[in-house]
């Protein structure tokens, strides 16, 4: 099943380069993503039943457990929604002559290649392979960032490629040290094999492992957009086509964090305490939140603003992982899901706004609510949601993280955390709310011009509104499994 999924994705990606005709392309992408989503559902059920899924094929490189299943589901769910949205989006672009058929094909090809690499990163057992896949995500998305091929997007793409490759290279150094630390313990077939590393964690050589963690944190941290390595993120997110920004922010960052979390699990088990990793993660997390909070306050472009908010949320998750209590891990994973859904919803509505107004500056936009009867309100509510306002889901996960922080007797940390959240909200309100009200300038017609996209937006809004107070039991079980995988020992919801 899992191998099949990977294969399907890869093949579809290639197909896009061969097939002619817009409708055919759209149709294929819809069908493929729907199928993938279904497959993901099946896989998840299997994981729920057996705890993990592996196949003997190709030296049993395929490995899926609760942790990776969660993120895989996010990838495929968002993949589906984004490809539905993309249909309307690209059609509009096509009408405005932004893209031609060829570029359309390339777009889909790159998008599916991107998804393929991410799925690979999440489903391999071998840390080295994982590294390769994550590096590949950068390469696959580079041209998506530079898709519009104008000054700004090329610049963004260059920065994206260079910074991420360098960061990833540092991560490779970390992987090498990880390998080194395990040399005396593991024997060839299971080298760099995560499960093996985790089981034998106590036996690994701590000094090297610590060094490895440092490099992996810096490396994958760069990819995950943690301050101060976040610098590529605002540019890339603001220049990429909005559906891609949604994927970047909702999925890519998570899969980078996934690498860190796997490593943290090993290191903490080896060191027997989370002090070493915790300090770093909390520091970097707070730094990211603070950076975002300050930068949002005077941000002038809405997509950049949202990008900074992604940095903030990555910081939140990192901090929660740093606390490393069952509750905090649960919150962190939950927050991954909620942030992905909410943030991608925001980026998608950004896309609609951008297509309506054609400008990225907040100052030049007025009357979104009156002009976009659906996307406008969704956008506004999404802002409240992402800022942690109940009853939306981001609030509930932030709450559980804050609760975990306080339960761990980190009172001051918790207070600072809440303060930063408030600052972020203030920044958003000050810099962004004004674009929703008032009457639009110029002669813009009222109404939505991306129907499938609008449907997607409403679905997402419903999702984050419902999960704000209610957690499906399956998801809960999955989260508990993941929590157990990371932290070991007995699972509980915190």
């Amino acid at each position: 099943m899992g191998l099949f999924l990977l294969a399907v994705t890869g093949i579809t990606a290639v197909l896009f380069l061969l097939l002619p005709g817009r409708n055919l392309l759209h149709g294929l992408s819809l069908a493929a993503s729907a199928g993938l989503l279904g497959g993901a559902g099946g896989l998840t059920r299997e994981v729920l039943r057996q705890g993990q899924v592996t196949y003997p094929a190709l030296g049993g490189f395929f490995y899926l457990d609760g942790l990776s299943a969660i993120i895989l589901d996010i990838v495929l769910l968002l993949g589906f929604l984004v490809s539905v949205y993309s249909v309307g989006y690209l059609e509009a672009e096509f009408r405005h002559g932004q893209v031609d058929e060829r570029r359309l094909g390339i777009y889909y090809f790159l998008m599916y290649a991107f998804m393929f690499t991410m799925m690979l990163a999440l489903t391999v057992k071998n840390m080295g392979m994982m590294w390769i896949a994550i590096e590949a995500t950068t390469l696959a998305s580079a041209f998506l960032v530079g898709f519009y091929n104008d000054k700004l997007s090329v610049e963004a793409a260059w920065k994206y490629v260079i910074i991420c490759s360098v960061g990833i290279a540092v991560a490779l150094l970390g992987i090498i040290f990880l390998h080194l630390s395990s040399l005396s313990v593991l024997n060839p077939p299971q080298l760099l094999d995560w499960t093996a590393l985790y089981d034998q964690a106590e036996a690994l050589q701590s000094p090297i492992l610590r060094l490895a963690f440092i490099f992996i944190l810096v490396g994958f941290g760069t990819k995950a957009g943690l301050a101060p390595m976040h610098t590529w993120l605002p540019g890339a997110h603001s220049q990429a086509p909005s559906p891609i920004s949604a994927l970047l922010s909702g999925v890519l960052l998570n899969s980078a964090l996934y690498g860190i979390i796997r490593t943290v699990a090993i290191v903490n088990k080896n060191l027997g305490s989370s002090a070493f990793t915790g300090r770093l993660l909390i520091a970097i997390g707070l730094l990211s939140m603070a950076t975002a909070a300050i930068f949002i306050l005077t941000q002038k472009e809405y997509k950049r603003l949202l990008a900074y908010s992604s940095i903030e949320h990555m910081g939140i998750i990192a901090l929660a992982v740093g606390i490393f209590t069952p509750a905090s891990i649960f919150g962190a994973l939950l927050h991954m899901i909620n942030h992905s859904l909410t943030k991608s919803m925001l980026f998608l509505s950004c896309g609609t706004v951008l297509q309506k107004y054609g400008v990225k500056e907040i100052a030049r936009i007025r009357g979104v609510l009156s002009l976009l009867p659906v996307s406008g309100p969704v956008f506004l509510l999404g802002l409240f949601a992402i800022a942690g306002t109940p009853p939306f889901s981001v609030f509930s996960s932030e709450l559980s993280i804050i609760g975990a922080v306080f339960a761990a007797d980190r009172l001051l940390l918790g207070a600072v955390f809440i303060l930063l959240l408030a600052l972020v909200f203030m920044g958003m309100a000050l810099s962004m709310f004004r674009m929703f009200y008032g009457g639009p300038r110029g002669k813009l017609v009222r109404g939505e011009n991306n129907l499938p996209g609008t449907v997607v937006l409403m679905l997402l809004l419903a999702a984050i509104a419902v999960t704000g107070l209610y957690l499906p039991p399956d998801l809960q079980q999955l989260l508990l499994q993941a929590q157990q995988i990371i932290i070991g020992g007995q699972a509980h919801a915190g």
Partner: protein
Amino acid sequence: MVGFRPEQVYLLMMLLYGGAALSALLLRKHPHWGNLTAHGLCLAAAALGTAASLLQLTVVEAPLRVSLLQSALPLIGVDLVIDRLSAFFILTLSVLGGCVSIYSFGYLQHYFGRRDVGLFNFLYALFILSMFWVLTAGNAVFFFIAWEIMSLLSYFLVVFESEQKENQRAGTIYIIMTHLGTSFLLVGFMLMFSFTQSFDLLAGSATIPGWAKDVMFILFLIGFGTKAGVIPLHIWLPYAHPAAASNVSALMSGIMIKTAIYGLLRFVLGYLQLQHAWWGMLLLGLGLVSAVLGVAYALMEHNIKRLLAFHSIENIGIILIGLGVSFTALAQGHALVGAVALAAALFHTFNHALFKGGLFLGAGALQLATHTKDIEELGGLIKRMPRTALLMLIFSLAISAIVPFNGFVSEWLTYQALLGSIGPGQAGINIIAALAVAALAFSGALAAACFVKLFGISFLGLPRSEHALHAREAPASMQLGMGLLAGLCLAAGVYPLGFLRLIDQVGVALTGTAIAGGLQGGWGTVSYPLAAAGTSISPPAALAVMVGVGLAAGILLRVLGGSGRERRYGTWDCGFAAINSRMQYSATGFSKPLRIVLRLLYRPGRELVVEEGRSPYFPDLMKYKVSTEAIFEKYLYDPGLQLINRFSSKLEYRVQTGSIHMYLLYIFLTMLALMLYNRLV
């Protein structure tokens, strides 16, 4: 009734509000029917709420616990606890809500065709529902959630007429202030959680160390103070209230800011159990500052709704004075004084909901009739809208704490509580209490002045603009809504005992001390339970005497006086040209003496523009502009915000320079730093 289950009534009520919201949305296309059904359902729900809460205040003893949803999400659970404190606030909410709904039947008609009434009513009904949840939340998390939802909905209601710039600004200031306040609350709740491992409001706080309790008190004070509009956290209030539609501002000012009072009672008195006297004294101090400054700023306002908003600040101050006295007294073990002060605070909360709600509704009627909020453009409306005028007069008298109305009784109780709190050997409290008495008296007199201005300028004299000249009386439903409130004001003023008995039930539930026994001396007489039976007032008696004397005087005149006719004639114009509307006193002129006396507070600025004509003695045009400063914004908030802004915009370009080399350098340095850390740790 047999097997009466209040829970069910409350549930039904919630359903009704939900139904109102839904029906409003569904009937969007037919604003008239939608409005009718929505507010009809709200009215029914309000009636149910009133009945249930009354029953609970009188019959039902034990607090009700209703668990609506136990979520799989950590820390989140939705359960309601309705005890007498909640019941009292629900009563207030339902009474005001009902009247406002009646009012809205007519009021919202001016939206038909122009705005989305369906959406408005949807938000409106949910807003009431969210307040109900705030008042009944059983655990801190759900309280927080309901609180945020309430803020969110009220924000949307504030920016509902969002095409005006000032409304957007108002909304933004409001949502930011309230969200900042809320995060203080969150820290408080989390402290509570980290020490007791639970969010249950009725659980004991014994395991919380003293210092943490102090910190929590401060946090709660800031958090709730922001919502209540306690000076200096009040800046959002004078913007938000005028921006909202009048029926909404009535609810916001009548109930929403009172949820903060509820919060203080619930968390500080009920949960933290008052460990120091200085908590109360702090409240007292804040209260008297807010009372005086609030009314002082109100005096300078000519926008009727801003004026009323500042009066909300004043009355919150008065409530806080009562609350402060009771907290201090209870902390020192003077149970009876505490109970009286508490009763005073709660009664004033109720009264303020009545008359302030009414005033905002009246303001709405004025705005509807004259299309302006500026009283300088009104005048002579008593001729054109006699009933509205009468109702406004009643509300004005009530809020100025003048005798036969309810405002007086609660202020009287506050005075008495202050008197009772004064005792030998506690200098601090004594001095603050004496100052509080002075503050109460001062704010009372200023309020009277302010409402003489409001009523006199807008209803009396000659009309000052076309609008005022062609104003028409408000629709019957609006009058009915206001009339009910006015009637309640009078009832609560003339026969306070009935209300005080209910409130006493709350007091008993909270402090275990009853004052009702001491309160009653003869019919309609409220006596002061602390001291000699001498101290007592009887509003009905006073009313009777006054009416009697008035009638007697009238009859006497008929008998003694010769020809009883009175001649109508023009106002004396000193023999110059006939009086016109520009010669009468303006609101600015009326408040000028006090502006000069209190110039320290307003830092008034004035400029005189003269366009000289043929000779300096015959100017073509003279403009005289007077402005007062909003001290707190100008000297406290703006500088802070500018500081942050400058900092961030600086940093933005220092850090995110756009140079890729810089970015790589960051990574490089981070790596080196972490390697160093690894080596050293």
